[in-house]
């Protein structure tokens, strides 16, 4: 008797419900109000005309969500990686503790004598007394003590949940201490309850970096092609791989915001002639503000996956328009591809036709689809943790996004052209000359246009939906975060952490792609899941009898 009939992929496929049915099965269990909310965040995809997704809306209380808070988005994601700023969390001890070395923003100090403050966690460790009588005095003293202890070039303060409520004015304290100590000191009102996710914190961080750091240092930068990479946080060394490739091409990166970056790089990065954006969600504000103020154009790139990397390099070269650069880029691509090609061809023989699902962050759930495509794998479902409609549907929906109360509370900076420094190097003119059908600026087409028809797009996926998804589709691999990882793996599906890379990486660029192919190959062909069944559960009684040992002395 064989089970082949039911095990064959065709038969299996016949049993798999359509995306619409799967969606219905996920929604079934919810109370009415919760269902109404979740319905809007789960769409059956039509790449031709992406539907309207209810992204960047509140998580329903009681739902197990992947999301974190505004503080995590501000300190944890955007500013935290700047290694030579001394970061102080103003609040009780927890928030500062949990954001201590828990993101893998890799960092090297530039020169001896510097301190990498990412290795430190500093906090005002608020006690009951400050909750009752206010914490401004303690904050001022903490800044003084930090200064005395480390003499940093800048200090940054982050407010946690209770700070706003007890009415501490961190910005006032920062101004006073800045004056007193003569170094740059600034604060972020990124209390955890602001907005609906980390996303609010990204915006708050962008505002602060723009107000307090960008444009402070006008020292000219050597180099013919100067750019900044925005929204690249150097998890697992991604930024270093991008650095390597761009250096081979002869392109100079002034600042990578904010992976492995220094304070000085940031204050000087308005001397670039182009901003390219990796993580649109976390940093598009900065790209827009820098363009308004300095006339530096931006466009979206993606260095995850070989096609994305090639496309991005070519677009940068085309922007500068020099034949020398265009040729150089092709040479680099050809050389790097000679290393990538054999690996991906080999891996593909095992990964082709396998399936993946991705639920993570605000850009990675999109970017990583390229890598899976390279391997001949199919992404059956994907969604972001804290993205907005434009990250799903493309930036063309921006004018149609309704402003809600949670977003309205996040400051929108009024940015004006800098009379002295706007279009200094003719960048705005270059943009005007290039802009056409084939060359888009300020662009992002969003995730849904790239995803297959009738795949399932799920925003802010809940624990329950994840479980159902695995039950229904049993994908060969899921990309997600630490909170889901072991839930997914207990169900026999390997989970790749796409926030921390499971302590691997880099996955960006050419070398990164090789790492990723090998990693997914390993994960989807590992034997470990097969060990779950002990041999004695499978053996038929007859076989057991046949296998019985002969008495040795017989």
């Amino acid at each position, binding site marked *: 008797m064989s089970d082949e009939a039911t095990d064959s992929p065709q038969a299996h496929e016949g049993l798999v419900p359509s995306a619409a049915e799967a969606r219905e099965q996920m929604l079934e269990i919810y109370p009415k109000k919760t269902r109404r909310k979740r319905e809007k965040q789960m769409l059956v995809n039509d790449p031709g005309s992406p539907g309207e997704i209810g992204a960047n809306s509140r998580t329903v209380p009681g739902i197990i969500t992947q999301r974190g808070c505004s503080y995590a988005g501000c300190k944890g994601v955007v500013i935290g990686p700047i290694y030579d700023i001394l970061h102080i969390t103003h609040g009780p001890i*927890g928030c500062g503790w*949990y954001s201590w070395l828990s993101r893998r923003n890799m960092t090297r100090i530039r020169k001896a004598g510097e301190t990498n403050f990412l290795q430190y966690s500093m906090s*005002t460790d608020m006690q009951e007394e400050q909750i009752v009588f206010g914490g401004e005095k303690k904050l001022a003293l903490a800044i003084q*003590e930090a200064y005395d202890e480390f003499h940093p070039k800048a200090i940054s303060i982050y407010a946690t*949940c209770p700070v706003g409520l007890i009415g501490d004015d961190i910005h006032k304290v920062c101004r006073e201490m800045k004056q007193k100590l003569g170094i740059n000191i600034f604060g972020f009102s990124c209390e955890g309850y602001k907005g609906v996710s980390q996303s609010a914190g990204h915006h708050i961080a962008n505002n602060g970096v723009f107000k307090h750091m960008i444009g402070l240092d006008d020292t000219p930068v050597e180099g013919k092609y100067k750019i900044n990479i925005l929204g690249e946080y150097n998890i697992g060394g991604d930024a270093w791989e991008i650095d390597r490739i761009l250096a081979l091409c002869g392109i100079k990166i002034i600042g990578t915001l904010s992976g492995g970056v220094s304070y000085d790089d940031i204050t000087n990065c308005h001397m670039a002639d182009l901003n390219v954006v990796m993580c649109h969600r976390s940093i598009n504000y900065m790209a827009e503000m820098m363009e308004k103020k300095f006339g530096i154009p931006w466009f979206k790139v993606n260095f995850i996956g070989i096609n994305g990397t090639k496309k991005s390099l070519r677009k940068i070269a085309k922007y500068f328009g020099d034949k020398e650069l265009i040729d150089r880029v092709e040479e680099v691509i050809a050389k790097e591809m000679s290393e990538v090609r054999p690996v991906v061809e080999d891996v593909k023989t095992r990964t082709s036709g396998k399936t993946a699902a991705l639920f993570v962050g605000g850009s990675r759930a999109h970017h990583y689809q390229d890598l899976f495509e390279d391997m001949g794998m199919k992404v059956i479902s994907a969604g972001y943790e804290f993205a907005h409609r434009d990250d799903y549907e493309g930036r063309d929906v921006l004018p149609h996004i309704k402003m809600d109360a949670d977003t309205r509370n996040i400051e929108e900076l009024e940015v004006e052209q800098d009379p002295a420094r706007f279009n200094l190097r003719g960048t705005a003119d270059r943009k005007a000359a290039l802009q056409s059908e084939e060359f888009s600026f300020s662009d992002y087409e969003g995730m849904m246009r790239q995803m297959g028809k009738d795949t399932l797009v799920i925003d802010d996926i809940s624990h329950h939906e994840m479980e159902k998804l695995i039950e229904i589709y049993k994908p060969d691999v899921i990309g997600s975060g630490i909170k889901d990882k072991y*839930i997914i793996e207990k169900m026999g599906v390997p989970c790749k952490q796409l926030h921390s890379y499971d302590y691997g990486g880099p996955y960006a660029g050419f070398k990164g792609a090789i790492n990723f192919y090998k990693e997914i190959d390993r994960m989807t062909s590992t034997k470990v899941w097969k060990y*779950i069944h002990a041999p004695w559960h499978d053996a038929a009684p007859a076989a057991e009898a046949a296998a019985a040992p002969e008495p040795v002395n017989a």
Partner: protein
Amino acid sequence: MLDGTTAEIRERQALRINPAKTCQPIGAMYAALGINGCMPHSHGSQGCCAYHRSHLTRHYKEPVAATTSSFTEGASVFGGLANLQQALENIFTIYKPKIVAVHTTCLSEVIGDDIPMIIERARREGKIKPDQLVMHTNTPSFVGSHVTGFSNQCASTIKYFSESSGETKNVVNLFPGWVEPADMREIKRMAKEMGIEFILFPDTSGVLDTGHTGHYEMYPAGGTTLEQIKAMGDSFQTIAMGPLASKAAAEELEKKCNVPSRLLELPIGLSNTDAFVNAMRLAGQVPVPASIEEERSRLIDMMSDMAQYMHDKKVAIFGDPDQVTALTQFLVEMDMKPVIAVTGTPGKAFEAKIKEICAEKCPEVEARAYSDVHFLHQWIKNNPVDLLIGNGFGKFVAKAEGNIPFVRFGFPIMDRVGHRAFSTIGYTGAMRLIEQITNAFFDYRDRNDPDEKIELVL
């Protein structure tokens, strides 16, 4: 590594640098996971819950389910009543726990949400059904530390559910304190070996160290059951281990159900384990079985075998008070010199206790409560040590100081797996500690000594 840290120690009043404690709710979450079928619920904004779940997951390498009230700015102004009520409805409908254990966060504490009132109202309005159990504990993060949160969750659970039926049973309650699932297993094994009837509370074994079956269980089989928690009120005695983590629960049970308690240090090392075994012997009126005697003798044997490598070695240790005091005791028993002991948790009792433990072996010991790892590091710069013991963050200090031998011990350890699987409690756990400590010394020498000094034999 930690290049900004100098040997010059300044007393700080406001700035915490590299803490040796975290906030209350994570302790409450951990303790609640030790109740069978329980969903911990974090009443505040969702960031706290996300942080706590991530942190516990990284430490245990296991799923950690917990829900949140997902406060937004509105809830922070108007209070979290609507959020909590909606959360409870969702939790019971979707995740179907036996009980929801609500704990507060900074935010809901500062707002002043009255949780029992909210639960009561939800019940009155039919939003939660009579058989749907909800409890709460207050865990303000600006008081105490994560250990306080653990302690509060344990005490509140007893307050809510333990009852005395009037009939005292021949059962001993064992409160393990904040230890690893493997340690809880070991405590249960020893108690079984002793032949006493017991209830272990809380019990995260079988919850945060589950096997792989190809299925995910949101509520694994482990954890102290609600029936057991109720029945604890009928036990004739409680043995509470780890004063900071377990004392409040023991007192609560004594107050509520008249169950007398005996407070012990965590059974780490020889004499603390002796005290535990003796307490079980007296409580159960049972002889100590030969198997336990044998375990003890095997420990003594290993102590004597390895004594020469540990004698007078200077040790710096940091972590949670219950762990640090118990382990310091063991270090002294092995003739090591604990020269500095630091905890982030406030409380002068810690300092006094460490001084008392070290009075003979190392009277000059530096003992600091409500301190931090930065202070410890600076102190080490002035007073070099042979061994560092502490949680995973210690590795940065160890590396900064020339890779001094380092043993991971305590919470959290996010870069190794052993702590979840192998106990450091009891006699066998003590042997494992000796193994880890001496290995750290030997590995250091094997890595750093010149060829002619590398030895095959100890």
